């Protein structure tokens, strides 16, 4: 039997109030892999996921999940997939383990709930009502509910948002183990390290469009070879990025991250580093750190969109506030 993709999205368009949340998206997810959909808040990640989960009907394009139509074949599909929503999803008065057992009862061959609770560190709060769980505990319970039915494919939306570093690592380990046991994992995240460390394939989405796809290595290897990050002790003088760019030449891109840090991308090497250092001296700027490094996914995002991922988040938040 030929291996079909776990998820196949083509030309997906989703619109809300005349605005395109998803704008002609193509996405394919290989089976038995961890695929990260990376992008700033509001990029269209959750909308895409919820379309795959059958919550939303595509306005244009097609979506196939495990070769099924998520809307038309919903009943056949649901037992085979696990879904972790972004926050909430339980009665406020239900106890943690009671909720997990409840979801387990909907499935024919659920996992042992005690084992699962133990793996996710939920045993200490098993009798705690949902509303009194911490954000991280609610997230872990959400993940447990997604996988308790032994699905072939799980969609996890921002799985580690609000988790402490220890819980994040536990969650990453669990997701890797799921893949090892033959489960396909699709996760959204706006944490670059999460995508970089966990995913076999990364799809970067911005403003409803796919802007880059590949393995973390392919994404960080391609294009320009290196980056230099400069953090200074006092805010930059006005026009600093332009002045630095003029010093470094045309093939180098300089982007201001905030008032005290900027990033240099391009064919940067030791001599570029030296020139940045000299520029600092000439402009009476005291470096706090000056690092030459391999491209990260952050740099990839920056190169393609011309703005850092964190700033993209801010833009969205400002848009929401305004």
């Amino acid at each position: 039997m030929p291996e079909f993709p776990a998820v196949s999205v083509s030309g997906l368009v989703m619109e809300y109030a005349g605005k395109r949340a998803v704008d002609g998206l193509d996405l394919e997810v290989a089976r038995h892999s961890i695929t990260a959909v990376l992008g700033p808040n509001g990029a269209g990640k959750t909308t895409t996921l919820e379309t795959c989960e059958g919550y939303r009907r595509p306005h244009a394009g097609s979506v196939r999940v495990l070769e099924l139509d998520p809307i038309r074949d919903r009943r056949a599909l649901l037992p085979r997939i696990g879904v972790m929503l972004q926050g909430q999803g339980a009665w406020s008065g239900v106890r943690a383990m009671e909720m997990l057992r409840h979801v387990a009862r909907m499935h024919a061959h659920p996992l042992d709930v005690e084992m699962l609770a133990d793996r996710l560190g939920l045993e200490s709060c098993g009798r705690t009502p949902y509303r009194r769980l911490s954000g991280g505990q609610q997230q872990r319970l959400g993940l447990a509910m997604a996988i308790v039915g032994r699905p072939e494919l799980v969609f996890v939306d921002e799985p580690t948002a609000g988790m402490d570093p220890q819980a994040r690592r536990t969650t990453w380990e669990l997701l890797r183990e799921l893949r090892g046991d033959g489960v396909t994992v699709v996760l959204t995240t706006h944490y670059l390290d999460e995508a970089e460390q966990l995913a076999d394939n990364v799809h970067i989405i911005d403003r409803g469009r796919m802007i880059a796809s590949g393995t973390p290595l392919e994404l960080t290897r391609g294009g320009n070879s290196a980056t230099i990050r400069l953090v200074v002790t006092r805010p930059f003088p006005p026009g600093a990025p332009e002045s630095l760019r003029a010093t470094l030449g045309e093939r180098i891109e300089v982007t201001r991250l905030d008032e005290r840090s900027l990033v240099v991308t391009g064919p940067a090497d030791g001599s570029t580093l030296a020139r940045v250092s000299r520029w600092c001296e000439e402009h009476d700027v005291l470096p706090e750190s000056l690092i030459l490094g391999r491209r990260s996914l952050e740099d990839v995002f920056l190169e393609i969109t011309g703005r850092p991922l964190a700033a993209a988040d801010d833009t969205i938040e400002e848009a929401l506030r305004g």
Partner: protein
Amino acid sequence: MAELAATGTFAPRPGAAPLTRQVLAQAGMEARLMLRNGEQLLLALVIPVIVLLAGVTGGDRIDLADALDLEGRLVDVLTPGVLALAVMSTSFTSLAIATGFERRYGVIKRLGASPLPRTGLLAGKVLALLVVVLVQLFVIGGVGQLLGWTPQPGVLGFMLAIVLGCAAFASLGLFVAGVLRAEATLAAANLIYLLLLAGGAVVLPVSAYGGFGDVARWLPSGALGEAMRTALLDGGTGWRDLGVLAAWAVLGTGLTARTFTWE
């Protein structure tokens, strides 16, 4: 490529549980949550029992039966009315509030991703409702007996009153929960409950309301109260009142079907 061998703790083995098991699990959960929640319990049992106790003991002292020109002993008139009140509180107020907050907290969305179909969820709700109503009947009936209630049960009329009463109020409760936000549902469902308790001819018979009684008997509360009293005072079947309840159930179901969204 061959399928990976299904080994390991998390090896996929998907499948839905039999639908009956899913529905029973859902019903059990909802009934448990309702009986465990303080406010819901207040509405389901404490208020009806207080109304019954206060009505019978206080009413005897002030000769309420004579004052309102009631036929039969006070406890025999009030107990069926309080049973009707209990059905109303559970199937209308409690259901509306619970459903409103389920929508708000994403519970329905979450369960929408589980194998439990919408019809199964609805069946679970109905079943939970009937379980809670059964508990109410036993408790309130027991208190009534302690107060000297001697019912003349007309089984058919009684069963139909409960089923149609639940159907009418549940459909209206879901309608309210579907069109209002959770907080507004909470307020509206409680307000309507209080208004019907006071002026809806549920606990006291239509005849006690004078001219307004002619209006009250067409309300779902008045119809349910009258149907209960007919069934338990005379052992009869109040067909006209049951017809009114059925009409409300049709209306409520129609409104809910048009407006309700699960999320």
